[in-house]
């Protein structure tokens, strides 16, 4: 089983890295692009002994305690059975 965790900045939190990427992408001629926000993506490989709901619960805890800082970030968890 594999968990995918997407960590993104909350709306309203400044993302200077996303802005810099946006500038470069526009320089390359790609348009129209309204905004680019940078985030983080994690793959967590789990032992098959957990049920999907157990895995989801655990990975949400990991995301909340470690992977994301809830002051500025939010996360989304997806569980994939391989």
């Amino acid at each position, binding site marked *: 089983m594999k968990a995918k965790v997407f960590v993104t900045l909350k709306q309203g*939190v*400044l*993302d*200077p*890295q996303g802005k810099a990427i946006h500038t470069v992408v526009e320089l390359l001629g790609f348009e129209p692009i309204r905004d680019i926000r940078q985030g983080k993506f994690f793959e967590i490989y789990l032992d098959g002994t957990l049920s999907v709901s157990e895995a989801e619960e655990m990975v949400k805890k990991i995301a909340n305690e*470690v*992977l994301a*800082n809830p*002051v*500025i970030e939010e996360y989304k968890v997806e569980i994939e059975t391989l």
Partner: protein
Amino acid sequence: MKYGVIVFPGSNCDHDAYHVISKLVGQPVDFIWHKETDLSKYDAVILPGGFSYGDYLRAGALARFSPVMKSVRKFAEEGRFVLGICNGFQILCEAGLLPGVLIRNKNLHFICKHVKIRVETNNTPFTSDIEPGKVLSIPIAHAEGNYFCDNELLKELEANDQIVFRYCDDDGRITEEANPNGSISNIAGICNSSRNVLGMMPHPERACEEILGSTDGRDIFRSLTNSIEKRLKDGR
């Protein structure tokens, strides 16, 4: 009295802090490896600057889980003094010992230069001997020093007098031009609501000797040392 300087893997201002406490402040000080858990003999601990755990994930995000941090939390709850400088400030925020978070500098640059900060309050053990409004010249050296919190928390910090330092110009004016990193409300340092935990991005330990360009950092270490003495005298 005894100071401790906590050493995380990747700390790199630990020796500077140790040097200032031992040679200039003239007080006993130990290095404390991050796997230690007994802080009982210390009156104040410093979380120094650097790049703990290589700044992986987010600055301070992994160091907050070092074994010593549980003890630092207890230490703070006991009313003893915790000073986080630069990466130490980031760790204290990640650990929830201070509110808010430090994000990427607005202009993305790693900024390393002397800046002016205004002392906003002397109602902390770290600034008790400094006249409020005094402008200090202290260097910063960081890429993630942009203090961020929501408006509600900002109001709370202001109402509780928890904003200890603000970036300012030479005359002590709080202006946008004087804000090096985009910090909300020009915040350079804050304390917790109990006032015994301080986090600041500028490096006072790098501003304690003439040859380094400023001795203003001494004001902070002098205040802290006097506060420890007072606390010991009060038998706490």
